[in-house]
């Protein structure tokens, strides 16, 4: 495809936002400014950016433990997101959720998730609701290769296919479920081929090529929206860092493998491709980079300045009125 300058810059902005956000979160974590642990999305930015660029603001996304990228791409403001990672009052969920439990229904974001795979049937449920309400909305579930050997994957996409729900299932196959290499976890390492098991289109795409992801996701999302049922998309990708911060990710992954994937940097790829094809010029990229750096710094400052949640609110929202 030959993308417009506007599209190129928009995709680039989202990817750079994710990357800078994640690197800043990582930095704050290592400084002891964020509690607990985080799962960083660096290396996989093209998937969240490419898919989300095809979504309407009211479309739904159900994400994973490695979900900051999806949250950024769906439009949660960086400052509220960083504050949520810090567990403070200024977070989009007042600090109650944190990294693996981020919700912002205002932009259709129905949660990162601390559990592997339940987002798959839950996305099917959001899609079912959309279908019953005839709202034209689509629901997307992101999940890793670790989810596809879990029963929730099978049960959820089987029902989505059977009921022709407006859903898209995006597998971010980064080759490792925590430390378990995919070919040790299954005899069928072609996730896309599993679509056939549910009579659902299954497509494999280079998950580090944002334009390829954008195009593939666009077809699937359009089909879903028009009543053509769900699609399984397998995006081949890799995470640059360990499973979570604190895991170096090097005891189970060869250095050459890590280096070779870093050479396939999705952010750099779009930039170089665009410059070579004159889709956009260097100044435009630099402007975006500077702007995003400022926004991420501002988000970090906001998170660091935000107060702890009021203890008097600890029992609020256990039940809705």
């Amino acid at each position: 495809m030959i993308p417009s300058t506007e599209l190129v810059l928009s995709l680039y902005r989202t990817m750079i936002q994710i990357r800078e956000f994640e690197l800043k979160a990582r930095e704050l974590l290592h400084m002891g400014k964020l509690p607990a642990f985080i799962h960083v999305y660096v290396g996989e930015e093209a998937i969240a950016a490419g898919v989300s660029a095809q979504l309407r603001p009211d479309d739904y996304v159900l994400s994973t433990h490695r979900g900051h990228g999806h949250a950024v791409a769906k439009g949660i403001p960086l400052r509220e997101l960083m504050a949520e990672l810090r567990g403070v009052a200024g977070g989009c969920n007042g600090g109650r959720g944190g990294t693996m439990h981020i919700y912002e229904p205002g932009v259709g974001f129905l949660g990162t998730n601390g559990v592997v795979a339940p987002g798959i049937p839950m996305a099917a449920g959001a899609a079912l609701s959309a279908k019953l309400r005839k709202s034209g909305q689509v629901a997307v579930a992101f999940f890793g290769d670790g989810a596809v050997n879990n029963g929730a994957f099978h049960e959820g996409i089987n029902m989505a296919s059977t009921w022709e729900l407006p859903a898209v299932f995006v597998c971010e196959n980064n080759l490792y479920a925590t430390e378990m290499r995919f070919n040790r976890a299954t005899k069928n390492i072609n996730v896309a081929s599993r679509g056939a098991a549910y009579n659902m289109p299954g497509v494999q795409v280079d998950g580090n090529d944002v334009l390829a992801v954008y195009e593939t996701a666009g077809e699937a999302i359009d089909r879903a929206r028009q009543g053509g049922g769900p699609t399984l998309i397998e995006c081949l990708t890799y995470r640059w860092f360990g499973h979570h911060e604190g895991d170096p990710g090097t005891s189970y992954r060869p250095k050459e493998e890590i280096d070779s994937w870093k050479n396939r940097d999705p952010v750099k790829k779009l930039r170089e491709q665009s410059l070579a094809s004159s889709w956009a010029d260097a100044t435009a990229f630099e402007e975006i980079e500077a702007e995003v750096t400022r926004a991420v710094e501002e988000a970090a400052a906001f998170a660091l300045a935000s107060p702890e949640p009021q203890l008097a609110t600890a029992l609020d929202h256990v039940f809705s009125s």
Partner: protein
Amino acid sequence: MAEAQVAAQSVRSQDLSGTRMITCVEAGIEALREEMKRDPAIFYLGQGIGPRGGNFQQTRGLWAEFGDERLRDTPIAELAQTGLGIGAAMAGSRPVVDIVFLGFTLEALSLIIQQASTIHYVSNGKIKLPVVIRAAMGGAHGSGPHHSHTFYSFFMHIPGLKVVVPATPYDVKGLLKTSLRENNPVIFLEHMALYNTKGPVPSEEYTVPFGEAVVRRPGKDVTLVAVSMMVSHALEAAEILDRQGISVEVIDPRTVVPLDKAAILRSVAKTGRLAMADEAYASCGFAAEVAAIVAEEALYELDAPVRRICALPAPHAFSPALDSYLRPSAKRIVDEVTAMMNA
């Protein structure tokens, strides 16, 4: 004041003489029909709940009326069924997820506890979870260990879930209607042996609020707390005990979350004795929770140690003789309350 309230409640529960008699199954169908007509956001997911009308006939006639879109037969996939219900609720629908047998909610427990119960809270109130998880509990003779569970107290342990355990057709209808208007996950558990029992149910519109116990029988010597199937055993036992000169007050909380503590404490203040008839196990169960509440808040009202009359701690046996022995019966309640009075 307290006496007057108790009296008023017991009058209300008896105020239905002359009303038409229908079964729990019929009462549930009426609740669903009325609420589905009122609110297009409600739909129903379950196994065999479409043309077949439900394993217990609990949706009989609804598919013909509301069609495939709103009465959706699912594969035998409780995890996905529940996950779809939760996702749909997050997106603004009001699903009923019928798991049919309580034991099979275990296949979906992660979804219920890890997702449904937490999302409203951790989203800081931004997302509502109006989903009703419906199942039948308890044993009919010969059901064996997988189809006979009564562990409703599992769900009491988890903040964020409401737990409804009706004993009469009146309450099935009124509480199911309330459940369908709730903005929270509701675990709605009927006893399979009660499905075809009849009781008075008015034709007029009504709902039953959560967290309001009813005094099924007033008494002055012993407070006997019971829910679901155990209410009828408790009433039968109370009748026999009455002839022995022991006056038993039977309290049915109807919902165990929220729990009407005040009604139990009021009754204990009057009787000075507390027994619980509970078809679930004693360990960490509903009866244990009621005992703990009374110990914390009304210990000095008690004239005797509390008594938990529960299922004996073994899996549910297939043999009808063993199964009946393991579950609390009216006879066991009589024996235990008598022993309590004589201690």
